[in-house]
């Protein structure tokens, strides 16, 4: 059976990690990824929440930042390969027509590893 493990943490803390601390965490995670390599499907590390844009489906309002209300629950997500934010919003508006109500949060992915654990490391210099 397929499960999504959603990762939450306080950005005030994670954005204050030093490069060394970040690297140490990644190294520890890689070990775990390796241990469960058969279980890990695509892995995605998201950009900071400040890079998020939220589309309110009821009135089509585009809002800066992540979706912060707690009244709604996370029901699913799409991973899309798009040209830019405009195209992402177009897709979200099309989805809204098919399925009104609630919101879509568009959040860029910083690292995406479709092959899961085997490829989950950062190649940025």
């Amino acid at each position: 059976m397929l499960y999504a493990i959603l990762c939450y943490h306080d950005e005030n803390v994670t954005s204050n990690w030093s490069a060394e601390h970040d690297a140490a965490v990644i190294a520890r995670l890689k070990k775990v990824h390796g241990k469960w390599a058969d279980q890990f499907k695509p892995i995605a590390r998201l950009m900071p929440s400040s890079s998020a844009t939220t589309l309110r489906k009821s009135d089509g309002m585009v809002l800066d930042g992540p979706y912060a209300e707690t009244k709604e629950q996370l029901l699913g997500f799409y991973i899309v390969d798009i040209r830019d934010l405009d195209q992402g919003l177009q897709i979200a508006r099309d989805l809204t027509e098919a399925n009104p109500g609630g919101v879509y949060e568009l959040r860029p992915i910083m690292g995406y590893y479709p092959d899961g654990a085997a490829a989950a490391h950062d190649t940025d210099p």
Partner: protein
Amino acid sequence: MTRTPDPSWIEARLTGARPQVVAALLRYFRDLDLAEEAFQEACLRALKNWPEKGPPRDAAAWLIMVGRNAALDYVRRQRRLTQLPPDDAAFEGAADQPDMAERLDAADYRDDILRLLFVCCHPDLPGTQQIALALRIVSGLPVSRIAAAFLIKEKAMEQRITRAKARIANADIPFDTPGPAERAERLATVTAMVYLVFNEGYTDANPASERASLCDEAIRLARLLLRMFPAEPELIGLLALMLIQHSRQNARFDKDGAPILLEDQDRKQWSRRMIAEALVMIDKAMLHHRPGPYQIQAAIAAIHARASRPEDTDWAEVEALYRALEHHVPSPVITLNRAVAVSKLHGAQAALDVIEPLAAPLDGYFYFHGVRGTFLRDLARNDEASDAFGRAIALANTPAEAGHIRQLLDGL
């Protein structure tokens, strides 16, 4: 779940909570020194309590309560009054106090932190002191690190910060909740200061130096502000601009610390991760249709970041954006930059025509004579080019700048 978080986790929590906590304590006490001392005291107690009892759910709220009580306790003891109850008892009761619940509201944090940064930008303080103060008070950098970044002795920096604090202690700190216009004004001032912090670090050739780490601090401050003001296009633009400039960190200097021109940089060394985030931020800013200088500069930087080779640069777009930037902030330096784009588009003569009116205002400016020299060289007016390069060398700010022009001179 484990009840004993490792110490580095606690440290990250304390660093992360610092701006919020010091800012709230400043609102209570209206005294920067007392606010800082209260924060220090709260941190000491956190280091003692958290490993035993586990971390609180809201670290910032815990630190504000404990810091406030510790400082009140201290103030009261000074007046020989009774002590307050111990930390945890005081904190448990906090939720019952409507006053406290209101004060810990996120909307308050926003104006608190803005105020804390704004206080550091006091117009009586020169730019370098504003930066030092913000790094000390908001980012919580130790004085030794700030001193190293400014290449002065720790004691001298200590005195500089003390003097800066004394100066703002007597000034009027605005404690009322700001109106929308005032808030926007404060945000603009603070945004400019964050970019000052960045530029202070940007000049250093060694990416591992304390000075260069100021770029990271500036980006951190911008992120902090953005979490509270997510819909400010200029703030979004500034983050994007800094990310793109910082993405070139490993490509901007050669082994000897001499700067490498943009067109000569190894673009594979640019951080794609920072560029990707910057491009997203520019997209977001543009949705607001409220362009400003930071957004336009970010857009110019993005054109270079998008080009995988210098010859792929969209110079027409660069020229148009510099024109827009001139419109927002008329300045001969911006016109000079536009002239470089003009030279790529229409040749050196057209570019020379653009900069001819700048000769008087930019006569003492190194880059003007360097750029003018290259235009003249491209037109094969070698004698004039040689004169221009000579002027540039005389005005160079660093040996590396002079060395670069000397190479051009030798190439004539």
